[in-house]
């Protein structure tokens, strides 16, 4: 229903000033979400979230080695210190989820599954359970 709860949750989780929703300055352009919501052809909202692909195009096209697939966790990880900001990952992502940060255009807004959280914040904040977690067997 495009409540944007997942987006606010993601912004709050990655806010350096604190993780509470009250710490989040909604007018500060440096607060940015790693997921987004688009409208499809029928004007239905669809959440665009990182799939942590098995054969990740972003990893394959990354020349600097900033994007890597962690075989143990299955997550696609991003190291901003190794990133050359060539944006190949942005161009190659088949889901259109990756984007450069809006202010400096230096860092890729990449889902990190909220580091060590059991349930990522976007899932936690979804009131309709449109986003949910399932363990996929390899």
């Amino acid at each position, binding site marked *: 229903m495009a409540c*944007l*709860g997942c987006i606010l949750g993601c912004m709050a989780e990655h806010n350096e000033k604190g993780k509470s929703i*009250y710490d989040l300055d*909604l007018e500060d352009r440096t607060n940015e979400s790693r997921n987004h919501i688009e409208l499809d052809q029928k004007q239905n909202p669809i959440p665009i979230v990182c799939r942590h692909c098995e054969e990740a195009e972003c990893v394959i096209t990354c020349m600097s080695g900033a994007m890597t697939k962690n075989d143990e966790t299955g997550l696609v990880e991003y190291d901003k210190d190794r990133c050359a900001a060539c944006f190949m990952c942005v161009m190659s992502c088949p889901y259109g989820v990756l984007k450069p940060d809006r202010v400096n255009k230096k860092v890729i807004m990449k889902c990190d599954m909220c580091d060590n959280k059991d349930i990522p914040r976007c899932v936690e904040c979804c009131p309709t359970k449109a986003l949910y977690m399932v363990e996929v067997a390899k």
Partner: protein
Amino acid sequence: MAVKMKAATCKSADKILEDFIAELEFDTCHHRIGTQDIKCGFGLQGVCCKLCANGPCRITPDSPKGVCGATSDTIVARNFLRAVSAGSACYLHIVENAAWNLKKTGENRGKIKGKNTLNQLAQLFEIDETNDHQKAIKIGEKVLEDLYKPRFKEMELVEKLAYEPRYKRWQELGILPGGAKAEVFDSLVKTSTNLNSDPVDMLLHALNLGISTGLYGLFLTNKLNDIMLGEPMIRPASVGFKVLDLDYINIMITGHQHSLFSHLQEALVTEYAKEKAKEVGAKGFRIVGSTCVGQDLQLRGEHYQDVFSGHSGNNFTSEALIATGGIDLILSEFNCTFPGIEPICEELMVKMICIDDVAKKQKAEFVQYSYEDRENISLYVIEEGIKSYKNRRNKIKINMPINHGNDDTLTGVSEDSLREFLGGSYKPLIDLIVAGKIKGVAGIVGCSNLVSGGHDVFTVELTKELIKRDVIVLSAGCSSGGLENVGLMSPQAAVLAGNSLRSVCEQLGIPPVLNFGPCLSIGRLEAVATELASILNIDLPQLPLILSAPQWLEEQALADGAFALALGLPLHLAKPPYITGSKIVTKVLTEDLEKLTGGKLIMDDDVLSTADKLENIILSKRGALGI
């Protein structure tokens, strides 16, 4: 085999209640809170606007303005003022009905139970009458005349009711209210689609509404009720679910308008009512207090010992009280009458009657109260009570929590009864404060909600923390209901206070937390504060006094809050009142206001850091006074 899964219930400061609710087969607020725990971030920050068809618009870094161009400041201020207006309207409705009842009591030569208050107000309002009934009529009329004035005419009684330095400050700030209802009306106009966009103008309007809410909706409602229903007298009383006596036909009352029950209280203890009750096997009728109107009746309990069984608890205990099965009829006239009580009533065959349509419940029968019809309404309630008792008692299983509440809660504290207790003047209290035996005064007021740690959790924890630091606590509102049921308003709670406060309490035989009753009594706290300030010849913001509505719930609480800020007092809220999305609104309320009224909003959801902040304010105010 299908196993019924029990939903988890939320925490409560009152463990007996928490355990009782956890085992209930009914769905209550304490169960539902878990199903609503994912909150909308835009709502929490107050930056959602649906005032027009282009909405809902929400503020994000990508969309910093609504379609119309409204900024976060405009959106937040509009939402905030709308909430304060609604809250103010609620209290004005209450005082309006009280004033009409007083006027009609006078016209019909009804019983005047509070002669001292009648004379106090007659003198204050400069009413030149010798006859008590004429005085009552004139007092009622003066209040109504003010409420109904147009916005461009200042209300006459404000200057008489307000503390002089405050009145002057309000005059300088241009926030003296015109006709109270007209002020609410125009604040609705102001906050409608594409009208006012100035956050500061809207915040000043909220303060203006706070003044009429406080002086009329709170303070005067108490006084008018004291005239009609009797003045509060200090006494120990039973509280909690233990007040229910199953041998009687039990009528639970919910709301805020005590004067609407004035006739019924007498009718229920007539020989006629007693005989009728005996015919169906009951000993008679009892009124069981619930929510603020129960708290109000408790305050005046000295006058109603034969009909009032005691106060059971606050807003979030009402569903559980009905679930005991011991209630036969519910009579409601205002909030907090939760929609959640209806399915429980249906299941347990509890008759619901509503006597004011503002609180009409879907499943309740509506019988409009009017002074003229009071006798018929009372007779009808008696008849329905009999019917319900006869019909349900042999079919219903009673489920009572064991040992809920206590028998020695000190009640009946008011601005007048406390002064009398202190020997006719507030001087002894001031002496204790000056001597440092009492560090300062905290008003812990407002509601209970289920989000600040659980039911009454923040209220009880903060209160314990403050008394430990030798700060005496005065409570008014549902907060009192929670604090009394956990024993903090019983004299033995003195052991929880710091050494100095403890010795004061033990010497006087009082608890460290004083029970002023319903939220309406926030007006009584203002009267106490004013009296302290006038003896010291200082203005209210200079007092070592803080207010906290830690677990505010309703729009009414926000109108009370606006009053506190207009009075120039520091006001703490655990949950932000949906304003943090606006930098201007937040800055004005938490910083700039100190230079305007002296008031200041403090938002903090941690008990210890809140107690630190409040204690520091008290200490710095003591320092400024040189004590």
